[in-house]
């Protein structure tokens, strides 16, 4: 039985200063396995669509323009993504990667959450196509 059993902690805290991390001014290094914004590499992709099928959040869409010519556009919705990493595991060709450092994703513009990967010309075709159907 004692009164104020945590007094040692209190004194220690006074001497050492707060343990709070001052976020925007000080950043901790994210661990190597941290999952942030998905990246896609066209080189090995076969357009099998397993990533799209397995994504639990429907964040991925692989648009096939021409399978033989390997013209794929990878549409990725960052705001839908739950960063579970299943797509990376599902991909047999290692086209997908979740890097650890691109995690400050907050934005005021909804459009920023829609990311397209692929050849610039192909992306433009997909974007135009969308614009046509949307109108």
């Amino acid at each position, binding site marked *: 039985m004692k009164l104020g059993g945590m*007094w040692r902690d209190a004194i220690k805290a006074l001497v050492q200063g707060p343990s709070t991390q001052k976020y925007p001014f000080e950043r901790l290094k994210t661990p190597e396995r941290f999952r942030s914004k998905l990246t896609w590499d066209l080189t090995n992709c076969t357009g099998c669509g397993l990533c799209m099928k397995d994504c639990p959040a429907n964040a991925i869409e692989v648009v096939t323009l021409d399978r033989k010519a390997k013209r794929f556009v990878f549409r990725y919705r960052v705001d839908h993504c739950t960063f579970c990493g299943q797509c990376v595991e599902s991909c047999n060709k290692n086209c997908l990667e979740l890097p650890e450092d691109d995690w400050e994703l907050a934005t005021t513009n909804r459009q920023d959450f829609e990311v397209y990967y692929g050849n610039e010309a192909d992306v433009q075709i997909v974007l135009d196509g969308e614009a046509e159907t949307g109108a």
Partner: protein
Amino acid sequence: MNTLVAFLTMVIFPGGLFLLFVGMMYEWLDRKLVARFQNRIGPRWFQPIADNVKLLAKEEVLPEGVHPQLFYVLPVIALSGALTAALYVPMFGFEPATSFNGDLIATIYLLSLLTLSMGLAGANTLDRYSLVGATRTLTQLFSYEAPFLLALLGPALIAESWQIGEINDYARDHWFILTQPIGFVVALIGLMGKLELPPFDAPEAETEIVAGAMTEYSGRGLALFHLGKGVELVIGLSLVAAFYLGGLANPIDFVVKTVLLLGFLASVQALMTRLRIDQTVGLWWRYGALLVLTQYLVVIIVEGTIA
């Protein structure tokens, strides 16, 4: 000219505005210290000022089913009670602005006005948290008031005066903390009960009854109650320091002593678990009051033998 000086004394310095400011500073210091004890950063120095400015600027919502006049007037009474009490206390180490024989009792009751107003304010609304909070506020008032009063009367008894100013002068060469340690502890803890600081914060225990009696208050009313509490904190600390820590001779004396006391209060707040209201009452009546009375007995006997 005299009226002008009196006016300034009351409204600007050391009473009135300056007192409100100091109250907010002491509140900040208290919050900051508790935060630091808990290994947090805590608020910046202008946080209480920002809080109060924001609250004062905001609309005051009149809840359904309250007595409107009472609802508006209670915070004013609370704050004015606290500010009036400051006139009889040697604030910042200066002589009390005004005094009369027996102002000690008047001060203590002016200070109780805040608690009483809060209790009434809680009872005034239909809100169930407010009602329970009001019950607890008043229950607590009945429990700490007597020991607190008795603890402050201890030094008065020796100083043979009921005037705060005179006791303060007398206490300068008599450190009552040494001769009446129990009274000191009871006075300090009574002050915590009065201000509803943890561990005596059952009346506003946020995990049970949200904000207690204050739940329905917003805007100006809440700000006035807050300011009143800040002022009361300063007055309470000055009283205890003046009576038990060798009096308040000058501003430096005041700052050193009251800040020391505040540090002690903050550490108690951080280290203790909130008491249930029945435990609070039990503590006060079973231990607080009895210990003070015992000390009285000793003081009277010792005084008697010396005299």
